[in-house]
């Protein structure tokens, strides 16, 4: 099952990547090549095998920790340090194009 131009447009939209027509064409060819490689997975019988998300689950019981669901108080210095890399800010807020008119 080959990847079409429509598939590429949909994937690029989902990934939020703007592709020029030339990029889209190259992407389609490359993805079809890669698909040929990963199609090999389909031939393997994996009936009854549980998907492995954490590699150490082959060795021991794994339960992922969650931290306590509690806000940690910050201060203005931390806020400005964390926002120092933002392309556009004002009054402690990140600036983006108008979303609601």
């Amino acid at each position, binding site marked *: 099952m080959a990847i079409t131009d429509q598939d590429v447009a949909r994937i690029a939209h989902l990934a939020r990547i703007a592709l020029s027509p030339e990029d889209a064409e190259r992407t389609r060819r*490359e993805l079809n090549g*890669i698909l040929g*490689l*990963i199609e090999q997975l389909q031939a*393997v019988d*994996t009936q009854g095998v549980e998907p492995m998300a954490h590699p150490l689950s082959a060795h021991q019981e794994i339960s992922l920790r969650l931290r306590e669901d509690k806000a940690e108080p910050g201060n203005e210095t931390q806020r400005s340090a964390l926002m120092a890399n933002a392309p556009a800010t004002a009054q402690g807020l990140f600036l983006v194009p108008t979303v609601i008119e």
Partner: protein
Amino acid sequence: MSTMPLHTEFDSIEALGAALRQGKVSALELADSALDAIQAQSGLNAFLHVDAELTRAQARAADDLLGQGRGGSLTGIPIAHKDVFVTRGWRTTAASKMLADYTSPFDATVVSLLEQAGAVSLGKLNCDEFAMGSGNENSAFGPARNPWDADAVPGGSSGGSAAAVAAGLVMAATGTDTGGSVRQPAALCGVSGIKPTYGTVSRFGMVAFGSSLDQAGPLARHARDLLELLDPISAFDQRDATSLPDCDGAANQPGRVRAQFDAAVAAQQEGGAKPLQGLRIGVPAEFFNEGLSPEVAQAVEAALQTYESLGARRVEISLPRTRLSIPAYYVIAPAEASSNLSRYDGVRYGHRTASYGDLADMTSRSRAEGFGPEVLRRILVGTYVLCHGYYDAYYLQAQRIRRLIAQDFQQAFADHCDVIMGPVTPSVAKRIGENRDDPTADWLADVYTLGVSLAGLPAMSIPCGFSSSQKPLPIGLQLIGNYFREGQLLAIADRFQQATDWHQRKPEQQ
């Protein structure tokens, strides 16, 4: 005029540390001579960010501690970090245009632990963009070069780390390994590297690529120097959700790896002339297939014979799903990458395009401009395999095969062997620019390293020979251990390095 740094006169971190503690050399002298060498060898493009004042401040602090007799095992030792570890002082770019101006508000745990241990950082090292690649050619800031042959790649993605160690610019460097990114550049540059068990070293502050695979590990000349870096960074960290609090009953904390190493060395010493008596080395038939170049096969074979002469026994084993590790990895890693890299939206940090319409347009253009071709390719592949309708067929199927691959290793360790050995790469370093028109050609060369990454096992690369080309290129031997056997692996590697001198060969200055 020699531009080799002062630290290259010492054979090991231990020896250099002793000289520092005895006041025979100062951390500042070491730092200055390394800074000069980095400048003189800037053609290697191993370093992305150098800041002499930051480095010298760390060196002065180390000298203060040493002056008070409070120096530790790494106090004053010159190292450097792969540019995917965030640092407050130096910029962190992950070799991407996306993060070209990024400075982190905090340090990665690995960076903090090494700084606490007294190591002096010379700066940040080149790598493939977001650690995606195996030749360091995917850096937005140009390829790093192999110190053995400037026209050859140093490997990747930790190419700058391997090149810097091989060229003698630092005693050791940090790297990260998602599918082989510590072992493969170590092999191609003729240095030693170890990827520890997944979950033993904190990922906090490592720019994320494939979170279920990413693991930090050091590169250095030899196993004993690797131990000096790996031991202090192997520690539980509350801030990494997959960090393990204990390792088969032993607390995950500094001292664990060293204690295992010391015990293994002591056991070897009891063996006299046959120090590795009783050690069973599993050699997977699938690692010696038609894709392996004859000179790599010969060098690995000679290394196995050296191990046999030390008392080890060779056992033929099978890892039947070795080839399947390629498609499994190239589903799982891009899937995780597409998820992890969705954070780069041009809003909170990172590149923002100059002209845009609405918010979606701004994000899509910023990402298209900020990411290089290989990163875009992997994000798109990952997005595809996670799509509704394909998720089961690709992503979950790859995760099931991942478990089968991990089980194959467990069966080998349970029934046949204590350690697995084989090649790291099918051939020596390729030319810079080779395979440019075939983006997946390099993926196939990862065949010997991916299985270990999918299984989360510890593995190393150590030098074991050279090609016969006019400019000889290094060949690496891979050692794979069972979970949490880092100390034992290092001791097995150390024994080989006592019997051979491959790790002592140094490239001529280019």
